[in-house]
């Protein structure tokens, strides 16, 4: 029985990258006080746009741009309804998911059966990529490396930059932020659009780096996991990364254990991600103070920026 662990790590990382990208975007959106449940929908819009672009002869950079723009377009609709019209964020976000799923499967019908002519391929770092166990960390594609850098960038932006401070204050108390002269709505739009572009990037990853073909619903509900990750991580970028790896890891572990012939019930293995979810939720909820301290105080509440 061969017990090579490297395929397991590779598989966990591959599953974690798109979750990480989408969750970082949602994290910024939520830190500005907006709960966007439309991540799954925006991911599918991004996946479709990127796939359509590549199929019609665009290069990878253009396809990525198309994916980001499509995700952001979905976010713009959400932003208009929730920021300008103060509609319910929960209902609007859910509608966005339904809309994105519908549009992508309707337009995507024309692409069923197509393989992506160009895809994001791994770019191994010589010397590091062959280290057993952690090698896969140095064998990512360009989106993967960018996602890793984005963890630090988002952290720096939120915690160390003036714009980040403004964004956070909008998420904590929009009325105070406004009284200090901040353009609350403008900042919120920016945060929502960033979240949409990141979700679109995650969708692009599924279409052009992971599956590399068009299949309906190819994001398989991972937008919801990205959403959950933000809460698990108590709105902190580094913890989002750990959570994404954990989730990618448990799914991969269940499959990997089967291939090496470990005699554990496959039903138990299939329920691993859910068991992990419960454990993490329990551990987070155990410290209510911390949860309340970290959650943006104005999250989910409509704000009338009267001008």
């Amino acid at each position, binding site marked *: 029985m*061969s017990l*090579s662990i*490297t*395929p*397991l790590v*590779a*598989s966990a990382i*591959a*599953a974690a990258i798109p979750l990480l990208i989408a969750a970082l975007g949602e994290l910024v959106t939520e830190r500005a006080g907006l709960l966007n449940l439309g991540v799954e929908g925006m991911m599918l819009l991004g996946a479709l746009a990127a796939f359509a672009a590549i199929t019609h002869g665009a290069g990878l950079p253009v396809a990525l741009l198309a994916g980001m723009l499509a995700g952001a377009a979905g976010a713009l609709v959400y932003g208009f309804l929730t920021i300008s019209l103060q509609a319910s964020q929960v209902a609007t976000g859910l509608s966005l998911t339904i809309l994105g799923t519908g549009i992508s*499967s309707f337009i*995507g*019908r024309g692409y*069923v*059966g197509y*393989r992506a002519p160009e895809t994001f391929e791994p770019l191994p770092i010589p010397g590091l990529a062959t280290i057993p166990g952690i090698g896969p960390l140095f064998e990512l594609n360009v989106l993967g490396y960018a996602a890793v850098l984005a963890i630090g960038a988002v952290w720096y932006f939120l915690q160390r930059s003036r714009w980040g401070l403004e964004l956070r204050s909008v998420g904590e108390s929009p009325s105070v932020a406004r009284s200090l002269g901040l353009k609350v709505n403008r900042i919120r739009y920016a945060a929502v659009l960033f979240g949409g572009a990141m979700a679109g990037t995650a969708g692009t990853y*599924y279409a052009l780096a*992971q*599956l*590399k*073909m*068009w*299949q*309906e*619903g*190819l*994001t*398989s509900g*991972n937008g919801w996991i990205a959403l959950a990750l933000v809460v698990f991580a108590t709105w902190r970028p580094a913890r989002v990364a750990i959570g994404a790896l954990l989730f990618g890891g448990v*799914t*991969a572990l269940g*499959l*990997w254990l*089967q*291939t*090496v*012939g470990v*005699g554990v*019930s*496959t*039903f138990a293995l*299939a329920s691993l991600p859910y068991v992990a979810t419960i454990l993490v939720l329990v551990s987070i909820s155990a410290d209510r103070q911390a949860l309340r301290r970290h959650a943006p105080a104005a999250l989910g509440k409509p704000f009338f920026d009267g001008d």
Partner: protein
Amino acid sequence: MKRSTFLGAAVVSVAMAGMGLGIATAAEPIKAAFVYVGPVGDGGWTYAHDLGRKAMEKALGGKVVSTIVENVPESGDAERVIRDLAAKGNKLIFTTSFGYMDSTLKVAKSFPKVEFYHATGFKSAPNVTIYNSRMYEPAYLAGIIAGHMSKSGKLGVVASFPIPEVVRNINAYTMGARMVNPAITTKVVWVSTWYDPTKERQAAEALIGQGVDVLIQNTDSSAPLQAAQDKGVYAFGWDSDMTAYGPKAHLASAIEIWGGYYTKAAEAAVAGKPLKQTVWGGIKEGMNDLVSINPIVPEAARKQVADKRAEIAGGKLVFTGPIKGQDGTMKVAAGKSLTDKEIDSINWYVEGVEGQLPGQK
């Protein structure tokens, strides 16, 4: 208030459905409905059913019109969808996944004048007819090709749920391969879903990571084939012809052919004599086949597949002894064959399949 409105609406729709049946004339097309577990765009199982539906519509030339409902979960939702279709005046309802069995039976009780057809199940009723395809026949033929093509001697299966329908395909695939090379073993990964391209791909990659070099899947998407293409190993198409999804990796496709059956059921309904006969067809009946064999498959393998295919088409049973179980004990003695009932309730692996079948002690 709300409740009574709802009941009123239900009564009206049922009454209208009843009238619809009463005044149906020869000129008016019969309505048929198809319930799908995945999207038509899965390129596999549901796509094959939809091809069959289209073939039926074409053959009937406007005498039957059909509607579809995609992505219907195998849960309580299924019953609601099926009930709704029956209430809307559909006279033929095809429920095309194993998990719709109990929902179909429940709704059928309330609509005795509607004919229900349930794919791959084992419970029938006066107006519920079962139809199924012996996919283990093309799986066996695929195994022969796998036996010729595998260099590592390790085959892999991305499997959905440990039900007899899937277990017998794993067994047949392994038997076909071991007929060519008795040292071959098969690894199985259960993904607990029919359609989840991401998970199916992960499972395929996990198998490839353990040295598997020929994959087959008993799930509904082409993701495992695509994974094989990327990793430079081989795989098969399942349910539909999947050549286009991974032309280099694709060795052949085990396909379902539902058009003939759907046409027969529709013609019978038009003639006013509903088809009530349970069908479990295979290569012989033209309900499935192994097609699009890759040119790289050596001539010897092709010939062996053609010979075995001819035997099966001529009535030879795949599960004919001697067949040994996983632990080497004789399960089917030489000269004996498994009966349909035994095949339909099979819960053991043949020799060469690794790992423990979930749910078995």
